[in-house]
């Protein structure tokens, strides 16, 4: 059906190599089947253990079709229909004296079709009352206890009438007459094998019919299951229905169902064909012609016709079906190399062997008449059950694997989606900020900015108003800082410091103060993805403050800015910016405030507050040789401005 077990490596081999491989596989398969055939024949040749030979009665006087003669059992009667004048076997057995206390029985292991046993003129057994015994395809044994009153010491007469109603010739196997306790085990064994076991298998068949039926209902696109379910149902009907001995309202239906073996084999054949990938064709109905003919005969003809036709239609049909199935399963096995095909192929081989043996038995070419084809059908049932379970387990495994893959894929996709969503969000946020910045820049450009520039220009023309100019210039510087800090720098503080350096140099140039810029580590500062514009403003303003202090209060000649990345004790990298001047320094109180100028003190307080808000550490030191401001950045900048205060 939907199996794709074809060997992928075989597909890629050159044609010659592939043919060689195929041949070797075919040989392996045929060898296995030959072994199975040999095993079957060996098993069939084993005769079932019988009771002690001393109780065996084989020599009889036979009256058949008016002819009286001596025969030795087992005996095949050439008659096909002898209901009115059945062959009569008359024999003799001896009960030793002193065994009267023991119950004696007559044991008939095998006969076709029915027997009536008489001991000393008293009928003790009529097998026709046992429905199971009336089926010639079953090897039903019979046993009957001889009433003690009938038996007497010494020679006793036993007479058997063999009823034959076809479709095959009559047969009577050797019989045993002896103590019941010695005969019974052999009888029980045969009952177990030929009566109980088929019932068990038929029950199994009924269960399979239900399972396959459900399977077909749930998976309508796989008709093979439906066909097999129908075959199983027909098989169950055959097994449990009784041979009608008279005319009843349902006897015709009964006949049709009991003789449905060709339909059953047709269905099983159809299943095998569909299973091996064959598409249903219209000419496929040919398969069912024998079955339909037989059913029509059952409907309109009498039972004798059906029985006669059964031999000519059903038996060959079963054989042909088995042969076709053997070929089809072998091909399927070679092509797909799956367990289900192999099991089916072996089962078909077993059945085919048994069918041939049965056929030989029908034609009296075997010393005995034990039919095993029906029994061997159980091998097919086992194969179907095993194959189904195998497919089911494999499908479950595939589902598990698929589900596992799906879970992994879904998780991966989810993570990707989350990451891309976060990226998208970040990008959208940055874009919004950039748009806002552009708008703000345009607004400021010609408004506030232009006015401040005018103030600078005017203050320079009218001497003595330098204070205004400085203130306006400082305002412009701050304006540029605000706009600059809003730019998306991708968490690289170095980009913000680059602009700051330019502004600081412009500020220091008129004062003749040199700015020494030293990036100690090659990369400068670590990148902080969480860096926000307000962090940048705080840091740059803090540095501005440090430079302004150096300019205004320290009388410095040189300012050194050192930028480096420090590996902390906790192995986390931290950026560090140091601003150092060579001015005269100032005194720092114990509370960290500058003792000197009030302005400078306020500046220091501001610096501390800014550092705290960014989670950075500020270290101030000052002496006569200069002042040093050391800012150690946090490993991770705080999200909120919680430290403000």
């Amino acid at each position, binding site marked *: 059906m939907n199996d794709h077990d074809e060997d992928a490596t075989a597909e890629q081999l050159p044609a010659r190599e592939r043919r060689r491989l195929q041949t070797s596989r075919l040989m392996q398969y045929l060898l296995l089947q030959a072994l199975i055939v040999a095993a079957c024949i060996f098993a069939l040749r084993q005769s079932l253990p019988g009771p002690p030979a001393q109780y065996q009665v084989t020599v009889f006087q036979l009256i058949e079709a008016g002819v009286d003669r001596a025969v030795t059992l087992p005996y095949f009667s050439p008659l096909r229909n002898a209901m009115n004048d059945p062959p009569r076997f008359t024999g003799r057995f001896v009960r030793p004296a002193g065994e009267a206390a023991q119950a004696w029985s007559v044991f008939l292991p095998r006969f076709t079709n029915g027997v009536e046993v008489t001991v000393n003129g008293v009928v003790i057994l009529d097998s026709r009352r046992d429905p199971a015994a009336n089926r010639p395809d079953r090897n039903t044994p019979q046993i009957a206890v001889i009433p003690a009153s009938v038996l007497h010491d010494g020679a006793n007469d036993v007479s058997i009438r063999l009823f034959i109603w076809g479709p095959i010739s009559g047969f009577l196997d050797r019989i045993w007459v002896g103590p019941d306790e010695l005969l019974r085990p052999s009888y029980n064994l045969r009952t177990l094998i030929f009566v109980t076991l088929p019932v068990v298998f038929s029950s199994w068949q009924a269960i399979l019919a239900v399972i396959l039926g459900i399977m077909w209902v749930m998976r309508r696109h796989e008709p093979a299951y439906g066909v097999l379910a129908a075959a199983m149902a027909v098989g169950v009907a055959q097994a449990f229905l009784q041979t009608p001995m008279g005319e009843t309202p349902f006897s015709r239906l009964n006949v049709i169902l009991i003789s449905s073996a060709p339909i059953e084999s047709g269905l099983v054949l159809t299943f095998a064909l569909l299973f091996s990938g064959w598409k249903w064709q219209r000419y496929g109905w040919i398969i069912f012609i024998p079955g339909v003919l037989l059913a029509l005969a059952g409907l309109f003809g009498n039972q004798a016709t059906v029985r006669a036709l059964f031999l000519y239609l059903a038996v060959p049909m079963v054989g042909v079906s088995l042969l076709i199935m053997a070929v089809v399963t072998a091909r399927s096995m070679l092509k797909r190399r799956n367990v289900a095909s192999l099991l089916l192929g072996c089962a078909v081989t077993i059945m085919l062997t048994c069918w041939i043996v049965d056929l030989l038995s029908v034609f009296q070419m075997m010393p005995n008449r034990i039919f095993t084809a029906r029994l061997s059908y159980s091998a097919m049932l086992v194969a179907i059950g095993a194959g189904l379970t195998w497919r089911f387990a494999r499908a479950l495994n595939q589902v598990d694997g698929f589900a596992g893959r799906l879970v992994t894929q879904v998780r991966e996709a989810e993570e990707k989606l989350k990451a891309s969503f976060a990226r998208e969000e970040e*990008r959208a946020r940055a*874009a919004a900020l950039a748009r806002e910045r552009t708008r703000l820049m345009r607004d400021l*450009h010609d408004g506030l900015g232009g006015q401040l520039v005018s103030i600078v220009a005017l203050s320079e023309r009218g001497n003595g108003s330098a204070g205004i100019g400085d203130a306006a*210039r400082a305002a*412009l510087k701050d304006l540029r800082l605000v706009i600059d800090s809003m730019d998306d720098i991708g968490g690289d503080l170095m980009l913000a410091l680059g*602009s700051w350096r330019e502004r600081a140099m412009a500020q220091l*140039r008129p004062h003749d103060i040199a700015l020494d810029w030293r990036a100690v580590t090659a990369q400068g500062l670590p990148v902080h993805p969480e860096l926000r514009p307000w962090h940048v403003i705080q840091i740059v303003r803090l540095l501005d403050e440090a430079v302004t202090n150096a300019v205004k209060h320290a009388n410095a000649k040189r300012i050194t800015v050192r930028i480096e990345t420090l590996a902390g004790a906790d192995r986390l990298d931290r950026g560090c910016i140091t601003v150092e001047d060579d001015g005269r320094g100032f005194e720092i109180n114990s509370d960290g405030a500058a003792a000197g100028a009030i302005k400078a003190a306020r500046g220091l307080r501001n610096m501390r507050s800014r550092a705290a808000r960014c989670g950075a550490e500020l270290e101030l030191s000052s002496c006569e040789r200069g002042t040093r401001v050391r800012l150690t950045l946090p490993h991770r900048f705080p999200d909120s401005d919680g430290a403000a205060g």
Partner: protein
Amino acid sequence: MNSLDDEPKMEAITVVLVEDDAPTLWRLQDALAKAGYQVRAAGTLTEARACLAQGAPKVLLTDLQLPDGHGVDLIRETRQRFPDTEIMVISILGDEESVISAITVGATGYLLKDAFPTDIAATVRDLVAGHSPISASIARFIVRRTQNTPEPPPGPALNTARLTPREIDILWGIAKGFSYAEIASHLGLSRQTVPGHIKNIYRKLEVHTRGEAVFEAVQQGLIKL
């Protein structure tokens, strides 16, 4: 193009200064005149065109927002008529919005309006010497445009496709605040070649004609034909 720069200058360098705000105009004019430049001042686009009609100046300094037009048009005209004239834009904030739009039409630098007089003179002198000034924020803007992003950041359109990896490295150095000497030593260049690289960068960012702009947009996949 700058072969004349190295010769001893017999006559004063001419500068056309275009600025509509009178105090700023005076201030810049004073700073340049004190440094020995011959300044022709203009307050509007019309006046500026009249100044240019007198002959090619060595330097054009112009504001962008003018009462009767936009400085970008003036820069484009000057660039076409006088290819040897060095053009600089006067900006209040030195922001990329104004500077980049000026660069794409042919300017090779910018001057802050509140720069100290000495700095104003020094910047013009450097420009005449072939040293185009560039700020960290402008460099940052350009390198960001070289990075592939699904949608371009806001601001003026800029084609960075022709920049070489070395030029982009130089821009990164400037954006991070390194001096020319530091950049030169990092990249294994001579310090003197860095300003030339920067001028090349400006030239590569210039969009010469409308047709070329369309062509470059197609090349970059901004326009689908």
